[in-house]
Structures are given as structure tokens and as C-alpha cells.
């Protein structure tokens, strides 16, 4: 599974924008105007490259709202609209 990477699901009904994830996963997430995680690749469920999967799982465990889920399949290759942010 982690050979192909994964994707990060954010439960928006649970997230309170505490910002931990954006801090821990700066490669994947930026932070928006209001403190909520913003996918740098513009996908609803951003891609988690293979080498960051373990780190993303740490963020998943630490999110105080349990709002993150690392899902086993990488997102579809076709970007689904949205915009790309430059990596930090």
C-alpha cells in the first residue's frame, strides 16, 4: 500500500482548524485564511507521497479532533479542479 503512497481525508465536520496538521505536514498542507488545512495539490483529498505516509499517520493520531484519516489508495492522478499552491 505505502509503496504507492496514500491520500489524506479531512473530516470537515470535525475539524476545528487547530492547525497541527498544517504544521506537521507542511509538504502536503498549507493553512487557509481561517486556520484550516489547505491541500497544496488542490485536491479534496491530497496525495501523501510514500515517504510521508508514516508521518501523516502520526498527524492522524495527534489531531485533537480525530479529523484526519490516511486512506490507503493514492488519489486519482487527474487533478479534480482546484488550484495548486507552491510547496513551502
Amino acid at each position, binding site marked *: 500500500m505505502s509503496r504507492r503512497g496514500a491520500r489524506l481525508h479531512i473530516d470537515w465536520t470535525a475539524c476545528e482548524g*487547530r*492547525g*497541527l496538521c498544517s*504544521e*506537521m505536514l507542511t509538504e502536503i498542507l498549507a493553512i487557509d485564511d481561517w486556520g484550516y488545512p489547505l491541500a497544496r495539490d488542490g485536491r479534496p483529498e491530497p496525495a501523501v507521497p510514500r515517504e510521508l505516509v508514516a508521518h501523516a499517520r502520526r*498527524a492522524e*493520531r*495527534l489531531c485533537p479532533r*480525530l479529523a484526519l484519516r490516511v486512506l490507503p489508495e493514492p488519489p486519482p492522478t487527474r487533478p479534480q479542479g482546484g488550484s495548486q499552491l507552491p510547496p513551502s
Partner: protein
Amino acid sequence: MNEALWYTGRGAGLVTLVLLTVVVALGVASRAGRPLPGLPRFATPVLHRNASLLAVVLLGVHVGSLLFDPYAQLRLVDLMLPFAGAYRPLWLGLGTLAFDLVVALVITSLLRSRLGATAWRRIHWAAYAAWPLAVLHGLGTGTDAGTAWLRAVTAVCVLTVAMAGAYRLLLPDPATGPLGPPAPPGNRDPRLTPLTISGPPR
């Protein structure tokens, strides 16, 4: 040898109380939804979790050394079942209760993602029972109960948690603060339904 057990038990108990205080203060403060001054955001939950794991270890040392202490004559069941022992049942019972709660808090927290957020959160509120029980237990039982330094340490602990509470209450919660216009009561409010249409034909 017995003396050593006794001292170890008392020392570990005191450190446990301090650690639990840190744990509770971090838990309370983190609910303010902001990073603690000078710390990255992820530091709060990491410290909270690690301090609580450390507290459990010291709690083990605390009760373990007293279990083997011939003076208190604790039985294994006294460690689990509150108010059952012969030795100062009330004050000891409070400690037993706190021990059970802390163990339950840590176990459920380690299984948090499996429990689901709502169930875990309900259980986690037991922390507000566990910590005061531990404080009372420390004040009421043991050799050092009446000493000024123990009272001083206890006072600092209470003050720490109170400060964490103030930090949380005085900051507006970013997730529930005032935002945008309030939702109208129904969706057919004529002022908010800009494009009036007619009903079905016939």
C-alpha cells in the same frame, strides 16, 4: 529495604501528582484551540500524551512499591477496588479510584481512533474526576500529609490547573466565534429568496 520501598512509594506518588497536573493543564489549555505561547501547535498533544504515559509508569512504581510494603499491608485487590482495604479506607480509596480512572483514560486514549471521537471524548471527561481525586488522596493519606511542603506542592498544582482553565476560558473559541450573518429560520424567507417563482401549473 522496607524503608526504601516506603520512600520510593511516596516519592513516586508525589511525582505522579505533578505529572498528572501537567497532563490536565495541557489538556485543558489545548482546548483553547490555540498554540501555547512559544510552542508549536503539535507540542501540546505530544506533551499531553507523553506526560500521561510517564505518569502511568510512575503510578505503577507508586502502587507497586506500596504493595510490597509490609506496613500498609495492601492486597492486590485494594489497587483495583476502592474502599475495600483496611488501611485508611477512605483516603486510600480515593487514590484507588484515581488510579483506575487514569488507567482507563490512558487505555481509551491509546485506542482513540478505534473508539470514535464522541465516545472517547465522553470517557475523557473522567479526567476532571481523576485529578481532584488524586489531589485529595495526596492531601489525606500518607506520612507527609500534614507537612507544609506537601501542601505547598498541592497548592502549586491547583494553581497550575486554574491558570490553564483561565487561559482556555478567556480566549474566544475560534471554532464558535461570531461569523457571517446568522442563518435565516426557513429557506422561504422572502427577503432572502431573491428570485420569486410561481407554483406548479394547473
